[in-house]
Structure formats: structure tokens, C-alpha cells
């Protein structure tokens, strides 16, 4: 086979193109308006409310997702049963739904006219138009991301490790806590980072299910959309903060999981 002299440069050119295309809009957010203007519009009450709300709701959603998702993922990873593939596909569904559809689904299930609407009303639980509703929407769209990553991470834990733990006297719960979770941790952290970033960026489902009101349900993405038409610098400033935070999240997760998996891989 003759080596084609243009193949190498073609690869490089493709990469450069992809890189430029993906990176340019992100860079443009920071560069479009003067930095001083960006910073000053951040002091806006609407912006600070939006950022605070985004951080609060996404953090609470992550706590719920990890608390419920980790044992669920472990169960999925360690039990073999026929409906397993179907169950996993069902759990993946929220990920591929358009956000508006997700919002509609949440309304149809948990809205005042929804299936559980009367039950929730009887229990004096109101989700629609409330901050709690934002948390519910975030859990719905980002939960599966964590669940699937965690399930894969637990699945990759070698069976001999959990077997060893059992023979040494640790029951299932102790084995889960002392062996499965620590060994699967890099995968769990990656899942958490992805889910968190997804939750921070969530727009459609939140708007449809919880509405948009400053200080109550207007998260950063919603505030950006509301301000785009009237106050572009403010919208850009909020966008810049979101980008910076998401980037920090991704990098942090990579570092955390990378250092751990390096330790495991160096056999």
C-alpha cells in the first residue's frame, strides 16, 4: 500500500475545522462585548438571582440523583434478568426526548391536571411554578445520564473483587460501600459531572413545567433567554458565567477521575 501524502494533512485539517467550529461560539461569548460591561451587568439583581437559583436547584437535584441513582445503578449492574435491556432503554428515554416533550410529560404526570395531580394536591405538594418543580425537571432530564454512567461503572467492577469481599465476611451492603463504590468512583464522578452540566443548561422542560419567574423558577438559561431581547450584555454575561462554570465542572471531573483511574491502570 502506497502512503498517500495528503492523508495526514487532511486529518489535521479536519480536526482544525472541527475545533474552530466548536470553540468559536464559546469564545465569542466572552469576546463580543467589552469585559467591563459584562462584569457590571452581572451585578444586576436578575442575574444574581438567576445564578443563585441555578446553583441551588442543580445542587439539590444532584443530591437526589446520586442518592437514588447510585443504589439503583448498582442493582441494575449486578442483577441479571431478562427484561434488563428493555428496562435500560426505558431509563434512557428522557435523554433523547426533546426538552419540550420532557416538560409536557412532567406536566401530564405531575401537573395539576396530571395523573398524580390530585394526589399531590391532597398532600399539599405543589411543584408547578415552584422551585421544587425546577428540581423535579432537572432530576428528570439529568438523572438518566448519571444512572447510565453509574450502571456502566459498577458493571466494570470485576466480579472477583465483590466475590472476595463477600468471602471475607462483608454482606452485600458492606461490599457495595467498601468495594463497589470506591472502585467505580471515577465512573460515578464522570456521570455526576455530565449530569450536573446537563442540569445547569436545562431550559425547555423547566420552562414548561415550572415556569419562569425571577428568584423562584428563573434559572440562568431562562434568564438568558428573557434578557436576550432587551439586555444583550446581561444575557452574554450570564452566558459567560454558565460557560465558565460548566467548563470548570468538566475539567474538575476529568482531573478527579483521571488521577484515580491512572492509579488503577498502572499494573
Amino acid at each position, binding site marked *: 500500500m502506497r502512503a498517500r501524502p495528503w492523508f495526514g494533512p487532511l486529518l489535521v485539517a479536519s480536526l482544525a475545522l472541527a475545533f474552530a467550529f466548536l470553540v468559536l461560539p464559546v469564545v465569542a461569548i466572552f469576546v463580543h462585548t467589552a469585559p467591563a460591561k459584562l462584569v457590571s451587568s452581572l451585578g444586576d439583581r436578575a442575574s444574581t438571582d438567576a445564578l443563585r437559583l441555578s446553583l441551588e436547584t442543580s445542587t439539590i437535584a444532584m443530591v437526589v440523583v446520586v442518592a437514588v441513582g447510585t443504589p439503583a445503578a448498582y442493582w441494575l449492574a449486578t442483577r441479571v434478568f431478562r427484561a434488563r435491556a428493555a428496562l435500560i432503554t426505558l431509563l434512557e428515554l428522557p435523554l433523547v426526548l426533546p426538552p419540550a416533550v420532557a416538560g409536557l410529560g412532567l406536566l401530564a404526570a405531575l401537573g395539576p391536571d396530571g395523573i398524580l395531580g390530585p394526589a399531590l394536591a391532597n398532600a399539599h405538594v405543589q411543584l408547578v411554578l415552584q422551585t421544587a418543580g425546577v428540581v423535579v425537571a432537572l432530576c428528570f432530564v439529568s438523572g438518566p445520564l448519571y444512572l447510565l454512567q453509574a450502571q456502566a461503572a459498577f458493571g466494570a467492577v470485576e466480579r472477583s473483587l465483590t466475590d472476595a469481599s463477600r468471602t471475607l465476611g462483608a454482606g452485600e451492603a458492606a461490599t457495595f460501600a467498601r468495594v463497589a463504590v470506591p472502585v467505580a468512583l471515577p465512573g460515578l464522578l464522570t456521570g455526576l459531572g455530565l449530569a450536573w452540566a446537563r442540569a445547569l443548561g436545562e431550559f425547555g422542560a423547566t*420552562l414548561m413545567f415550572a*415556569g419562569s419567574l425571577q428568584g423562584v423558577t428563573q434559572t440562568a438559561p431562562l434568564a438568558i433567554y428573557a434578557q436576550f431581547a432587551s439586555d444583550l450584555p446581561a444575557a452574554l454575561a450570564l452566558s459567560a458565567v454558565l460557560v465558565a462554570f460548566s467548563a470548570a465542572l468538566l475539567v474538575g471531573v476529568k482531573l478527579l477521575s483521571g488521577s484515580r483511574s491512572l492509579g488503577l491502570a498502572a499494573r
Partner: protein
Amino acid sequence: MVFAAASLKAPLERYAAKLRSSPGVSVRYSFAGSGLLAAQIEEGLRPDVFASANLKLPRRLRSHGMVQTPVAFATNRLVLAFAAGSSKISSLGDLARRGVAIAIGSAAVPVGEYARILISRLPARLRRAVLAGIRDEEPDVSGIVGKLSQRAVDAGFVYASDVTAAGGALRAVAIPASLAPPVAYAAAVVNGTRQAAPARAYIAGLVSGAGRRALAQAGFLPAPAP
């Protein structure tokens, strides 16, 4: 290519269907909140026509040299809407009742501006109650209609044409003329379009032609006399 306010969706689509029967004319739409569309034009997008739910936005674009003189082509009425079958609201005064959840448009959108004008004209006590009852600010009218139909809110300020378009899902309480804000729809040809003549013809049809008829069917009133 026409950028048009979300509340114009039903009548303008019917208008486009009528236009399609004559040769050589094809209309594509982008419906969204008028504020968002205006911002897109400011950022350099170039449709052929901009149809807004107020006069303010086209006038602003005109002052920046982005569109030509706006032409008013319809008016609408702001109404207080609620889901059919709900018995909570029967008058404006009912908005002051305890636990009433209200949805309005966000401040950047005409339907939200009009609602705010109306609220500012209310007697003090009712005004305070309404402001306290606002639980949702939607980026466009369809969001408000959605929340109403889902009974997520008890009342919302939308256009009369939206109630018509909802086909029975919504009922409306009329706003007294003394309080009602003037709602005017205006359209303008966007500068830099390469289809200026068809664009002007399209707008003309909105004022008196197939477009006018479609608007009337949808509950839009004719343009105010100049």
C-alpha cells in the same frame, strides 16, 4: 421569509396558504416573541418582513436603519383569560382573591409590556394583589396559553385572538376600555432584502387583502385609523 410575533401564527399561516395558490409566491415563517425576533435582526439576521406585536420594536429598528417605515396592520385586544371550566375567575376583581396564580409575558415581549401597562392602570389595592399573584413570566404567548390549559395558573393576560385560536379551551374576561392598553401590530420591510416588491405586496395584503381577511377570521381588529 417573514419574522412574525407568536400571536400571529394562526392567521398568517392561513394567509400563506392563500398566497400559495398564486404562482411564484412562497412564504416561510419564523414565529417567536417579537422581542427575540427584533434582537435577531439587530444581530444581523435578514428576513424580508418583520411583523411585530407592537409599534415600539419596528420603530426602534427603523431608528437604527434596519427596517423601513413600519405600517400598522391590525390591532388586538388584551384580555384576561382562564381555562374553560374553571370557576375561579369571572372578573378582573377576582384576581385579588387569595391564592390566584397569574401568568403574564416577560417584560421583553409585547404581550408582557401591554399587561404591565394595564396593571399600572389598576386601582392600588388590586394592582398590589395582581403583582403579588404573578407566578410566571413567559417568553411568548404560547407559553401563557399552555400554562392556562394545563391549569398550572388560574389566569393569564393574552390577546383575544389567542383565545379564539385556542378553540374553546380558554374563556376570556374583557378589559374595560379605560384600562385597556392600545395594542397595535406593525410590519416593516427589512432593509437589505432582495425581495422588496414581494415584501411590500405581502404587507399590503395584511392591511387590505387575503391577509386582512385571515386576521379578521382569527379575531384581530383592523388597524387603527392613521
